[in-house]
């Protein structure tokens, strides 16, 4: 089972379901932490997803959520979202403007 990492401002911001997010690949090696921008279904319950990967979650100050979530990647997108420099990436993701 592959492991990924994502960041959220507050843990309560993370909502179960199909969404667009940036994730980091935790596979060991020189490319560890490479970023992917994906559309995926995420859930705190493994049983809700078919063959999911592990998704670790950290907050805006880097604190790690004790228990992982699970992720099923559906589509890989270019590694950016449309926006102007210094615009908040989370607000763009929330509006789904990248899709």
């Amino acid at each position, binding site marked *: 089972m592959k492991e990924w990492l994502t960041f959220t401002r507050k843990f309560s911001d993370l909502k179960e379901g199909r969404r667009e997010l940036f994730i980091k690949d935790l596979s060991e090696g*020189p490319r560890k932490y*490479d970023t992917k921008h994906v559309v995926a279904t995420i859930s705190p319950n493994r049983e809700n997803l078919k063959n999911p990967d592990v998704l670790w979650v950290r907050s805006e100050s880097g*604190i790690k959520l004790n228990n992982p979530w699970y992720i099923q990647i559906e589509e890989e997108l270019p590694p950016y979202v449309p926006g102007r420099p210094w615009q908040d990436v*989370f607000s763009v993701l929330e509006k789904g403007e990248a899709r």
Partner: protein
Amino acid sequence: MPFKSHRDFFDLLEKEGELVKVKKEVSWDMEVGAIGRKVYESGGPCLLFEKIKDYPEGFRISNGTTGTWSRVALALGLPKNASIKEIYRHYESGLERRIPPVVIPREKAPCKENILLGDEVDLYKFPAPMIHEGDGGRYIGTWDLVVCKEPETGWTNWGMYRFMVHTKDYLTGWPQTTSQLAFIYNRSYLPYNRPMPVAVVLGADPLSHLLATAPIRPFEDEADYAGGLNGEPIELVQCETSDLLVPAHAEIVIEGEVLPDKIAPDGPFGEYPGYRSGTMASGIAVKVKAITYRHNPILTMIALGTPPDDSSIAASLTAAVAMKKGLMRHGVPVVDVYVPPEGVTHLIVVGVKRGGEEVARKVLDYFTLRRVMTNKHIVVDEDVDVFNMAEVLHAFATRCHPGKGIFLEHYEGRANSLTPFYSPEERSRLKGVSVVFDSTWPPAWPEEIVPIKASFKTIYSPEVQEKVEKNWESYGINLGR
């Protein structure tokens, strides 16, 4: 003694016992960061990690190039035991002269020994460290020098900004919106929706990096000042993919473009105030177009965090001298400014010839007029040595009137969003407050009522002091001097 390169400086550090070469294999994934942090926190040497897990031999990481006053002194050509005051004075006088850089042919530029262009670009070929556990990614740009240019005037700016590896050919970064990079970008690129060429330079000569931290005024080139300080011109070479000029002896140069219409997350990152706070996901995206590097490149890291480290030491020097000049221009009768590294440019000490409310308010005015990177300012009389924090604290405790000597200024749109005590809402609006602690005697007090400091040097007449000094050895008291 001028240094052409990072390596020249490392040769001297080794001779002076200021460099440790770590031969054991270490991981770029938190291990080098943790070692670097531990060494900073005990005032230890500069480190050169020579064997990095997952990477071929020759790809190295350094930490703490000028992370102590001793190493700053050596970079400036001073003895390593020079006092902070001597270092300040030397740097201040060095800035009086400017020597423009020279451009050398690319064949003679060591940073062109290896060139990756287009599809060959792969940031993962370099051991960018995951510095702190919980950071948003691998920060390749910490002790860097970021070059950008204002196209209308040709002003070339050097700054020091964090940059994170996002993918093999994208960086994300977070130069503050009040930075000079942002000033140039917002003035000359964003309105035309065009990308801005940038170069992230790692491992240039030590004074060029110091100058990259300096708040040099807009439209003045840091390279001229670096040359002046170095005593000879800095050698530059043109980038492969833009007309930017970069230090030719640098270890690694990452060439790219800040994109006007695309963004990606940056951070969080354990930053210079000594905390990892909520500065995340509102930076810039850089498409990397080329990477050039020396054989056996050294990736210059600083395991940023609680002071002291390269950042807090460099800013202590470069910010203080700029502030002194600025305060003078603002009409403050300033004698000296000290930025204690422990205060991470949040706490500033200003020594003045004459104090009082009017001067204190003028000091506050200067520090809050434009972008505000500081928030606590202690103003002391000339008799207090600003470089001696014991004296400063004594003056603050005994001369600052809590009811009459504390002045505040509130502002919005220009605060330092890395200041840890601001709430997320304040940070997002760059809303802040600064304070000045007037720790001077009121100028209206007649001399005969001003309390006399009860120290050896101030409460005894020269005759009594001389007598005691003259007879000192005969008292049989050893002060261990």
